[in-house]
């Protein structure tokens, strides 16, 4: 994996073979992968687990997962039908690796590997899940300015952020999401904030005290909209330069949203950078933290070699201070 990024990815590990468990675990750690395994004996619930994890980078599947020979293939067909965007990496044994799968089954898998050839798996991980490099300074900067914006809007709350991760899924989290174009000479695309409507609305109501009783989803829309605006503004101030604006900056592509299926597409197959923030009320430590997910989709152009921060302007005025002309 690229040494200068700290971005990970989550993979659903459907292996079940305890003999190679430590090998796969070490491999995941080396490749910056966070493995999610179904509880032992709960293999029947795999599709339910898949539905509850909508921000995955891929799936590691053992061909004999579930106990019976090639039972994993049946599961692979079901997973692929439900989540065609997720790359499935199939592990075969040394004995079966030579046997040929049908063309239809072969098309399901991103790669087929054995435990003795993890290098082949690593190369395919680099080509699919880790195909896009997100500069470390950019990721760190995004978390700083987003935490600052959320802290301003959710007062008396601690804002934490988990390790950033790459996602191949195109599933929307929650019911509410904001969408903001980002345009610069080195990147073009969108930022989204996604949240579950009821838990964020409940939080806003609690923070507003007695005024919260009258709040509806419209206040929630406004708060998330302003959070998006503040993050976008800070991002532009720090990273967007319109020097050498090119004609292709006028291009756009349609964004397709199928809300009953919680599906959104920007037309690009590239992995998206995803960060999960949690908002925890200091006065209510027993309340569960409220998650807000942030994704960056640079589907229109991506040139990380040209990434740079804007130079500090000479007359530095703190945000919130009045600069008189």
């Amino acid at each position, binding site marked *: 994996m690229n040494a200068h990024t700290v971005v990970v990815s989550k993979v659903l590990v459907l292996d079940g073979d305890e003999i190679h468990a430590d090998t796969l675990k070490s491999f995941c750690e080396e490749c910056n992968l966070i493995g999610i395994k179904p509880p032992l004996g709960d293999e029947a619930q795999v599709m339910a687990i898949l539905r509850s994890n909508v921000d995955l980078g891929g799936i590691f599947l053992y061909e004999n997962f579930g106990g019976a020979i090639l039972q994993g293939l049946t599961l692979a067909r079901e997973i692929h039908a439900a989540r065609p965007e997720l790359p499935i990496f199939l592990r075969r044994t040394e004995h079966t690796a030579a046997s040929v799968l049908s063309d239809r089954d072969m098309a399901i898998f991103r790669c087929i590997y054995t435990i003795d050839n993890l290098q082949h798996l690593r190369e395919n991980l680099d080509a699919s899940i880790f195909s896009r490099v997100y500069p470390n300074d950019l990721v760190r900067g995004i978390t700083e300015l987003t935490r600052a914006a959320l802290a301003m809007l959710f007062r008396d709350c601690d804002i934490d952020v988990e390790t950033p991760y790459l996602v191949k899924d195109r599933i929307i989290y929650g019911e509410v999401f904001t969408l903001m174009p980002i345009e610069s000479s080195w990147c073009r695309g969108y930022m989204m904030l996604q949240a579950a409507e009821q838990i964020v609305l409940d939080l806003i109501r609690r923070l507003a005290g007695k005024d919260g009783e009258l709040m509806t989803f419209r206040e929630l829309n406004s708060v998330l909209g302003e959070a998006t605006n503040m993050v976008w503004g800070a991002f532009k*101030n720090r990273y967007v330069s319109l020097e050498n604006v090119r004609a292709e900056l006028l291009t756009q592509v349609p964004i397709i949203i199928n809300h009953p299926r919680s599906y959104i597409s920007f037309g690009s197959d590239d992995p998206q950078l995803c960060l999960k923030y949690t908002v925890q009320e200091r006065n209510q430590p027993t309340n569960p933290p409220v998650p807000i997910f942030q994704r960056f989709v640079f589907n229109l152009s991506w040139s990380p070699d040209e990434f740079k921060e804007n130079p500090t302007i000479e007359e530095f005025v703190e945000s919130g201070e009045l600069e008189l002309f």
Partner: protein
Amino acid sequence: MAQVLVVDDSSTVRDEVCNFLRENGLAVITAVDGADGVNKLKSDPSIKLVLCDVNMPNMDGLTMAEKVRNDLKNSAVNIIMLTTENNPAMKARGKAAGIKGWIVKPFNGTAVIASLKKLVE
């Protein structure tokens, strides 16, 4: 009669700024975008200060400032931009439109209330 007009498409920002100004003794009304802001200024000549966002639908804040000066011929009202933007080119356009100042969000009422009150007097 209002003293201050707060113009922002975000109800969250309008509420925060208005509540703070009212707690500090100022009479405040609001507008949801630049076009609404122009109409509010036309109908209430008592307004002395406008706090205005830049990025808004229908009419942005800088266009609103230009219309206030050129179409309404109102050179007396003090206009302060309250925005996420910190772009020198935008500030230059604002200066050319006769705005009085610029605040980069988030709004820090305590830091600016004394200056804002002077602009209202």
